[in-house]
């Protein structure tokens, strides 16, 4: 396998000007991974500041309902309300070690922007967040949160004015300012070494899950389920189980159905292409232009996916399924009522798949769902979708 490749996927499809920054990042990352000072400081931030480890909650009501043993990995309880902070703390600390003096990030729904703003504030690095103009309106509350945390939000008015354009804008900023700026990419996408860095920082989810389930059940789970947009929470929980006899299922945004063309399921319905620095699966037209995507969950509304997922799909090691907006909304309400946990709409896709898959599981089977984020951010949207009645 070539450097920076996952099977045939991944690589570094970027303008020449960025190559020096990617090479520097790769070298630094290789060094700090071996640096005990870095590990101990990151460990402090994760445990004392962010609230790790997160619980692996056995859900009695859900288990009775589904007829198997269901656990939720509670990334919703991490500081900031989602798994995003695992990555932003890791990369922000790395940026400090690299001597960078400024962080930039892209954000769609605002979760990664908020997590970057938190990490920047905690580590004393100024943060500028690129956000599609459409998203700044849809997610005005998160814009305010980021500003409250001291970050500057830069609306992006080009292209479709959403997440992919925010990534383009952040890459342009980085090209122009790479000596003092670290681009804190929010998912396991983009050019090498980003997919690897993000996967490594998110793998804490799977490592904890593995330890916790062994303590609790004395064996590994039968199935682990996670939602996949860019795929960072999924790769984080899957990675430590890849070598085990554990069924891994990634759940994509089926939107209004794969036949409708309005969805975000690049692995289920896309084709292989180069997008924003990496070869992976992509929702594209016949000429190679990325298509507009749709999902009720803003965090899954993206035309491509991390290259490691592309490899895991081709090898058959992970199964990728799509769940519609309607199924996700049902799961959102269902989990709220059944367990008193309001999931993020993204995470609700994983819950929805669990509801669908439960028929095939025995009562002793162990099912782990990665609850990647909490749903407070989505409550207003869901209320408006349903005329105020949940």
């Amino acid at each position: 396998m070539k450097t920076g490749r996952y099977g045939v996927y991944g690589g570094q499809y970027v303008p020449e000007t960025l190559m020096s920054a990617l090479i520097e990042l790769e070298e630094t990352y290789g060094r700090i991974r071996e640096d005990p000072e870095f590990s101990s400081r990151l460990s402090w931030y994760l445990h004392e500041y962010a609230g790790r480890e997160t619980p692996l909650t056995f859900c009695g009501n859900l288990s009775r309902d589904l007829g198997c043993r269901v656990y939720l990995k509670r990334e919703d309880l991490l500081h900031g309300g989602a798994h995003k902070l695992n990555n932003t703390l890791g990369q922000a600390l790395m940026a400090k070690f690299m001597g960078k003096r400024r962080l930039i990030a892209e954000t769609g729904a605002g979760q990664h922007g908020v997590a970057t703003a938190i990490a920047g504030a905690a580590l004393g690095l100024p943060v500028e967040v690129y956000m599609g103009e459409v998203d700044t309106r849809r997610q005005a509350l998160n814009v305010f949160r980021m500003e409250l945390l001291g970050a500057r939000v830069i609306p992006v008015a080009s292209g479709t004015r959403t997440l992919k354009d925010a990534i383009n804008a952040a890459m342009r900023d980085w090209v122009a300012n790479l000596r003092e700026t670290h681009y804190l990419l929010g998912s396991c996408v983009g050019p090498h070494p980003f997919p690897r860095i993000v996967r490594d920082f998110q793998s804490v989810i799977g490592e904890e899950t593995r330890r916790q389930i062994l303590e609790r059940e004395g064996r590994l789970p039968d199935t682990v389920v996670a939602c996949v947009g860019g795929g960072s929470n999924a790769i984080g929980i899957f990675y430590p189980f890849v070598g085990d006899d554990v069924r891994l299922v990634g759940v994509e945004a089926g939107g209004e159905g794969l036949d409708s063309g309005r969805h975000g399921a690049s692995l289920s319905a896309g084709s292989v292409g180069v997008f924003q620095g990496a070869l992976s699966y992509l929702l594209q037209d016949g000429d190679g232009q990325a298509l507009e995507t749709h999902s009720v969950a803003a965090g899954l509304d993206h035309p491509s996916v991390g290259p490691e997922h592309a490899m895991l799909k081709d090898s058959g090691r992970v199964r990728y399924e799509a769940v519609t907006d309607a199924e996700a909304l049902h799961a959102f309400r269902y989990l709220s009522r059944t367990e008193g946990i309001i999931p993020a709409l993204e995470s609700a896709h994983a819950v929805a798949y669990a509801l669908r898959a439960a028929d095939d599981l025995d009562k002793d089977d162990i099912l782990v769902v990665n609850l990647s984020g909490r749903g407070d951010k989505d409550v207003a949207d869901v209320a408006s979708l349903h005329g105020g009645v949940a």
Partner: protein
Amino acid sequence: MSRIAGLFARKSSVFIGFTVAGDPGIEASFGVAKTMIDAGADLLEIAVPYADPVADGPVIERAHVRALRAGTTPDDVFALVRELRGYAPALPLVLFTYHNIIHRRGPDRFFSEAAAAGADGVLIVDLPVEESGEVAPYAARYGIDRIALIAPTTSPERQHAILSGASGFVYLISLEGVTGERDRLPPGIAGLVGAVREKTGLPLAVGFGVSRPEHVRTVADAGANGVIVGSALVRLIEEHAGDEAGMQDALRAAIATLRRGLVPDPEPDMPRRERVEG
């Protein structure tokens, strides 16, 4: 001798114009390119419209959007190249593209169609040397020059690797950033031109940010063989939307002004076509 090599052998100072195929419309695009040629562009870079042009600044990105809204596809780009080849048989034409356009079509088909249409070179803005093995055999098979990019941030080792696979000319990126007009060019251009000159016999052209006659002069004085102007011309297309005659006048005037920065030609006022064909 290829058209590109011939041009640089003939002229010590080459003016390269850039346009996005299909901007401001598929039909109007030919008029834009023709005007640039008539006004004195020695070589044209023709961009294949792409929805996510991350190496480009806002002016050229909007041109990509206009071209895509007009429905421009790679087929239309090849048709434009064919038409231009007919209009200016000796003028070098270089396709400027993002890699997914090539990946989607398949490199064999892309390069064969490019060659059949009459393109001389292909510049893939997001395909660094590490990944260039994907296209190198096809460029060679169809006799298309692979125009390499070198940035101010490119290390000497990478310069060597990049130059070992380059042909036609080398595109030196003047600054750390995306395409777009700047008030002044960074001071390091002469250093970059000199460093690359030591490693290759290929002609060197400088682009990114070049938008004023004094920039053109700076580049020429730095010892480059050519200068590439993009955003400053593309902006005129946007400013004269809906007024084709005004747009062509503005392009002619801009190119004439910019060309004044070049090392003077022996016969500066002779119309381009006669000079190329004669």
